[in-house]
């Protein structure tokens, strides 16, 4: 159980509160506007990418850890961070390869596990 010693409870509380607040912003958008969930996901990813590109989101990640990287804004931040890193390493080509390289694990996992999960699932009956 040596991993238990690595857990810092103040870090976990900061993560819980930040992650929760980001979700509350999404909930307010759902309840107060007529946006569909798909549009809200797009808004969150784009906002995360822009904030990541401006260098603002990095402070939130340093503060909250997974509380900032697990929400979809963190996915956008990861894309922006990868694109900037790619430009630093490879120049113009890096802008096209960097973003997807940084988030390749998440995208591939979503496609692979998503396909397997829909294969093993039973189609939902429309009665409920």
């Amino acid at each position, binding site marked *: 159980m040596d991993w238990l010693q690595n857990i810092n409870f103040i870090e976990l509380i900061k993560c819980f509160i930040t992650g*929760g607040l980001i*979700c509350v912003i999404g909930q307010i958008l759902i309840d107060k506007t007529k946006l569909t969930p798909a549009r809200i996901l797009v808004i969150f990813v784009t906002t995360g990418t822009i904030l990541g590109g401006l260098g603002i989101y990095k402070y939130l990640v340093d503060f909250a850890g997974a509380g900032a990287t697990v929400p979809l804004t963190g996915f956008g931040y990861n894309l922006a961070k990868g694109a900037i890193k790619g430009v630093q390493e490879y120049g113009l080509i890096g802008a096209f390869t960097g973003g997807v390289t940084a988030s390749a694990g998440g995208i591939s996992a979503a496609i692979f596990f998503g396909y397997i999960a829909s294969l093993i699932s039973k*189609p939902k009956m429309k009665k409920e």
Partner: protein
Amino acid sequence: MKPLDSKKDYQDYVDKKSPNSPILKNCFNAFWVGGLICTIGQVIMNIAKSRGLSQDICGTIVSIILIAISAFLTGLNIFNKIGKFAGAGSLIPITGFANSIVSPSMEYKSEGYVMGVGGKMFTVAGPVLVFGISTSIIVGLIYLIFNTQNITLV
């Protein structure tokens, strides 16, 4: 009853008749479910870090594990119940991205395994990837032009 002339009158009428959605309760549920999912992510990240992996790899491991869990929970119809209760609390974390891939492909399973499951996977996730990746390319190009983040920071 007098007819409703303008669009605004109609909207007021609808607002008066439709039940108030309990926004405070929804926000509270979204807060603690979303916070809990992020905290699970942080615990996984700490375990990965204690194995001596780098920060980037740890983040990828967290995404992969959370995506796998929520994809299978969606396949078993459990995630929809969590989503109904938590709203944005399960939609905004990366779990919602996996859910948005699995639920349309489950629904169109009858259309076949290639165009049904494989094609309809991206009805919601497609736009997310299109806008996310496009914006990241623009960010990269702007960074290339100015070559420093301090200038883009207005």
